[in-house]
């Protein structure tokens, strides 16, 4: 039986999550993103493949970083970008959310980039619109472009994904980044270890493709090639999930001492924004092994690749 082209290359129609994408599809996005990254580094302008196309950034949750990254990516491809930061409080749930989508759809955009605080919120909107939808983070579900940019950063630094030991540490249960990144890395053959206090570890984490799920961060770091620290929401440290910031830093914070357990050439990553002195020591965040700024750079490249693959005009 002939395989669909989409089995080999990512074709959309939406990018709602990384779960379910196969290694070839993931690789096709990474290859394209790599191309855009090189182009940016060479200060070249590529073909305006989104010329005369409209991209709407519909953000129901505040995010300066991700929205700017999408905006820059779309503009570099020549698109017209409309940013719609919608304060969560001004939008009612349910029907109004769908109404918003219908209204925007009537304006005939080509891509809508959506961030929403509810898991599944982006999927719901994608059913109501005719254009491509990119999930820029939905609740505690997925953040696919973050998973891709993490994967691309690692692939560029290490030259491969397969066989790498990747420790993802911190608040796993509330993290859409952890889910998307774990799916992608696992599909591409990395050996993922998830570590955090039990209150922040999901019960089903062993089904995500992680090789190890542990409460012992030192065990997770042992010989790791990549150490990825996740952001801890400060309000989770007021006694509900964790006793205090100082206790978290003592047992789960990434210190120079703790980092010695990882491989000598281990890379340190963080999806940002960082809580310095809580999940990561400043000296490490700013140190030679940190690729945190590269992650931001790759974010633009990955978003260019996804926008291109979902809405770009075929090369003439």
């Amino acid at each position: 039986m002939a395989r669909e082209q989409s089995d080999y290359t990512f074709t959309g129609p939406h990018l709602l999550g990384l779960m379910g994408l196969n290694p070839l599809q993931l690789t096709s996005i990474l290859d394209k993103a790599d191309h855009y990254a090189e182009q940016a580094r060479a200060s070249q302008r590529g073909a305006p493949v989104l010329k005369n196309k409209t991209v709407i950034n519909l953000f129901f949750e505040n995010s300066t970083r991700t929205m700017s990254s999408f905006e820059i990516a779309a503009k570099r491809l020549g698109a017209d970008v409309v940013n719609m930061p919608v304060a969560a409080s001004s939008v009612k749930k349910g029907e109004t959310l769908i109404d918003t989508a219908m209204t925007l759809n009537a304006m005939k955009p080509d891509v809508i980039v959506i961030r929403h605080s509810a898991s599944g919120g982006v999927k719901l909107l994608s059913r109501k619109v005719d254009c491509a939808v990119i999930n820029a983070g939905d609740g505690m579900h997925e953040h696919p472009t973050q998973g891709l940019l993490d994967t691309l950063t690692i692939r560029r630094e290490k030259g491969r994904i397969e066989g790498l030991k990747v420790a993802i540490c911190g608040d796993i249960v509330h993290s859409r980044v952890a889910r998307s990144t774990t799916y992608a890395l696992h599909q591409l053959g990395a050996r993922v270890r998830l570590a955090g206090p039990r209150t922040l570890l999901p019960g089903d984490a062993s089904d995500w493709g992680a090789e190890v799920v542990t409460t012992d961060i030192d065990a997770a770091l042992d010989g790791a090639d990549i150490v990825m620290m996740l952001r801890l929401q400060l309000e989770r440290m007021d006694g509900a999930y964790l006793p205090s910031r100082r206790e978290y830093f003592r047992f789960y914070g990434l210190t120079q001492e703790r980092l010695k357990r990882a491989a000598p050439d281990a890379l340190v990553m963080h999806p940002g924004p960082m809580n310095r002195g809580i999940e990561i020591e400043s000296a490490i965040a700013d140190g030679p092994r940190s690729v945190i700024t590269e992650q931001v750079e790759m974010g633009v490249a990955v978003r260019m690749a996804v926008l291109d693959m979902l809405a770009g005009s075929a090369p003439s």
Partner: protein
Amino acid sequence: MITAILNARLLDPATGTDLPGGVIVENGKVAAWGQGVTEAPSGAGKVVDAGGLCLAPGMIDLRVKTGEPGEEQRETVATASRAALSAGVTQMVLMPDTRPVIDDVALVEFLTNEDPEVEARVHAAGALTVGLGGKAMAEIGLMKLAGAVFFTNGDEPVADASILKRAMAYAASHEAIVMSRPDTASLRGSGVMNAGSFAARLGLKGIPREAEWIGAARDLMLAEATGCRLILDQVSTARTLELLAEARARGVKAGATVAAHSLFFNEMDVGDYLTYCKVNPPFRAEADRQALIAALAAGEIDAVVSAHDPQPPEQKRLPFAEASFGAAGLETTLSAVLSLVHDGPLDLLTALKPLTCGPTDLIGIEGGRLAEGAPADLMLFDPGTPWKCEREDLITRSTNSPFDGRLLQGRVMRTFVRGCEVFARG
């Protein structure tokens, strides 16, 4: 310094030993023990002729309250230590419900620092939630590093199951033990004694047994869900024992303690509104007491605790409903348990196990057994000596003992901590 204790009846529940023999102590540790030890080695600084009395590991009491810090008029750690040593208790765990609550590292260290006035070995239990408020989890990991042996919300268990579940999950990631009093505050209400016909006759509000059953079922299920090691604190009813057995059969890591006074008294002992018999959990029905004894005989109870809770007279000389809960128990634990030996249901080693290696194994501390190299924490006692418990003779600062006026048997004659004699009677 070498000490020899000779001509004793050696009792070691951990190994099931009940033999005549002696113990040689060197540098605070047991250097040799057994039937073969019949003479003092040359250079022994002190030789004790036990005169055939029982020599056993010092007792470990997992539930002791003092008033320190904050209510020193009830009891200090030093006065509790003296009371403990006079009764053969060489290690005690202090509960966190003090003022302030023991919910941070500095307070754990305050209680457990070496103090020349305190010769018993003292451990601290940390508060499970900040201020025991039942809302925000306390610094379990840091307190465990500082030496806290387990974590508990004391007499008022965490009411919100979601908060308790997270605290237990968090404790499990630190391999910390949670001790929870199985109770349901909304069912306990303002009850003051066991719910039943006797309470009704006295016109007192009852504490229903289902308050404990529901609490126990909840705590055991959360322990199963989180993988947390749980100790059910002061089991008082037969059905709680069934819930415990069922959970253990499912692989739940659950231990249990029983208060010594619950093995001795039943609800009828409240008698004529005796406030010294007002405790929480309350003295239950005779069938419950018998079930606790049977569980003890079957080895299902890890530890018997004194539940020592000194209350000054102004808290007890009140109408029953208004009086404080709590009984001073340190000095009567051994006799209460020995009463079950004298009355028949237990043999001596089975009775001593939940006072020695039972509690040390439960919380993972040293002591509680006769073994070469083990700390020489020992008690020399006569199981048969009769005595009358008189409040004014008790060493504890508050003398609210339900045993007041009771005829008991079994007295500790000498107590040793790290090989040093810290108590001698007469």
